[in-house]
């Protein structure tokens, strides 16, 4: 902290240190600067959640592989074999898994994020820090699972001798959009959850429901063209299409107007989520 302290001293105009003002309704000027100062805490909270995630489990991190893998198998059998849906010319398991990855990222990040404040209620009511640290670090934890289950995708590609095109390098961009989507929805849910515990039940339902209305088990190309823009109102449609475009290199798998709509919705969700969170966070300690 010494380095930081020196810096803060230099910044202040008055002799001595910076002066902190606490007042009703005062949105702190240096909120974002504070978030940077509390990056250590952010790091430690994420580290704690990762450490704890698979403690006292027999197979540990393998869970991060098994769950998406089994879901992929079921989806391949149900949608690919039984329903015989088109696979746009790629092996069905890869089609499913390229959507499974962002969906898992979104759904775990969303659930973790919306429960994060409640789960850390003791911290919120006993220690000060910018509250945004908590949901953000929760999202990071699900990113670790995402990275691990990425191994399955690589394995599938090797198995089916599938070579991705140059577009694979755009994958981080789509990953960011997926994270932004889960953050956006998650922040809304987290702040609402503090006040209304109803959202504890809404979120799992939302996640379960979303799995079927998002193009995870099938390609969104089966959606009739005139409905695709409407379908893209689901922000995950843009993300999943983007993932498929990037991984499978299939031009047909993305519908750009729809992608633009989905992405702007994600941005809107994220911005409004942060706005609502900031608005509510002052009262978190009192109502949690």
């Amino acid at each position, binding site marked *: 902290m010494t380095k930081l302290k020196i810096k803060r001293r230099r910044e202040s105009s008055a002799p001595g240190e910076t002066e*902190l003002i606490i007042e009703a309704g005062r949105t702190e000027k240096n909120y974002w600067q504070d978030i940077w100062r509390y990056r250590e805490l952010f790091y430690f909270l994420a580290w704690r959640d990762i450490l704890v995630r698979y403690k006292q489990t027999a197979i540990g991190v393998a869970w991060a592989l098994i769950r998406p893998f089994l879901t992929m198998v079921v989806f391949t059998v149900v949608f690919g074999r039984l329903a015989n849906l088109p696979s746009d010319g790629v092996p069905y398991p890869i089609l499913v898994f390229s959507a499974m990855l962002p969906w898992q990222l979104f759904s775990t990040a969303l659930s973790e994020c919306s429960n994060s404040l409640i789960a850390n209620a003791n*911290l919120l009511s006993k220690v*000060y820090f910018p509250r945004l640290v908590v949901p953000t670090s929760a999202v990071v934890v699900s990113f670790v699972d995402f990275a691990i289950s990425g191994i399955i995708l690589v394995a599938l590609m090797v198995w089916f001798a599938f070579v991705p095109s140059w577009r694979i390098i755009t994958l981080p961009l789509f990953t960011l959009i997926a994270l932004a989507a889960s953050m956006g929805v998650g922040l809304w849910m987290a702040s609402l959850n503090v006040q*209304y515990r109803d959202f504890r039940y809404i979120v799992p339902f939302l996640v379960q429901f979303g799995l079927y209305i998002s193009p995870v088990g099938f390609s969104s190309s089966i959606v009739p063209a005139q409905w695709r823009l409407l379908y893209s109102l689901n922000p995950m449609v843009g993300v999943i299409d983007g993932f498929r475009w990037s991984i499978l290199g299939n031009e047909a798998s993305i519908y750009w107007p729809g992608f633009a709509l989905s992405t702007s919705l994600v941005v809107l969700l994220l911005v409004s989520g942060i706005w609502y969170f900031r608005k509510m966070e002052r009262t978190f300690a009192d109502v949690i």
Partner: protein
Amino acid sequence: MSDTVIRVENLGKKYIIGHQQQERYTALRDVLANKAKGITQLFNPKPSKRPNPSLEEFWALKDVSFEVERGDRIGIIGRNGAGKSTLLKILSRITEPTNGRISIKGRVASLLEVGTGFHPELTGRENLFLNGAILGMDRTEIRRKFDEIVAFAEVERFLDTPVKRYSSGMYIRLAFAVAAHLDPEILIVDEVLAVGDAQFQKKCLGKMEQVGQQGRTVLFVSHNMAAMRSLCSRAILLNQGHLTEDSNVENIVAKYLAEEDISEAVVKWDSQTAPQSSEIRFIRAYILDNQGDYASLLDCRKRFQIAVEYEILKPLRDLRIGFFMQNLEGVAICGSNDPMAWTEPAREPGRYVSQCDFPGYVLNAGRYSVYFGADIPPYTKLLVSTPYCLSFTVEDVEGHGLLNEKLPGVVRPNLNWKVNYLVHT
């Protein structure tokens, strides 16, 4: 040079308390239901806006103003619900004030709870880092102090054991050790010293004194008056959200002991509800301090009196009125009765009072409760008895040893010691 580090001006904090809701959080259903009610009222404007009867404003703090100079060690004293914790929470930015303004210069660390954020699944080492980060230390700082913290907590052997396997003592020691090694410019501490065994408490108090002597600014909340007197130079007294006094610690401690809530020190029964039989009816019971005032907070050095008033309804021979006292842990402390005090064998109908004087230096610090009873020969069964109706707290304001710990046991005699020289070896 006046060097104010904390300036609090007209601070207020309002809570809305619900009377019917059980949960602390609102359920969406209630909000929707209330909104719906609002809409129906919109169409039916007859009943004008009236405050929701189930909600009530409650000012946990009101118009609190004070200043803290650099290096001050300030005690915040008050009863439960006086607003001490709310004040600390606002100062540590956990919750926002409703009105007023605070300006703080310098890095603040607050310690409102020991072991905040400890995770049972993580090992001692991991928790140490986590807790350090939560309290505002960074990794290099924690690494630098790591050995010192571990040595203070005396948990070297269990560093790599999950804390869920720790005994509660070890857990608390580790938690406090992290907190004790913070070095902020301003330290805010809430009642955290009341943890651990006596020996560890001593160590913690020592550490706190050390922090104070390094010229740091400390704000300290405790119900332990002896600790307060040894740690703080100045104190503020809060009463139901108002700052009633700001002065040196001795004055405030005396004030605090004097202004206590006397509702537990007096009990009065009306003729219907009073404990009674066909022979006798209890009227009133109370505790008086050495000044003759009702008191439920007593100084262990001073004498006090327990008294009960009753009405005898028919002539009784050899009546005995007595009391029984136990402490908070349910340990029987003593019992006594008054037969020797009334010299004639019979008592005529009428009102009486039986008073029992306790000398100073009898009861040790602690909390006690008392009930009364009456019996007549052959003294095998009580005629009537009251429930536990009086409670009082004895405070030991003297403090013992360097660190003002509580003396062991339930009695607190003032004993004389002598040391004689026997043989030179």
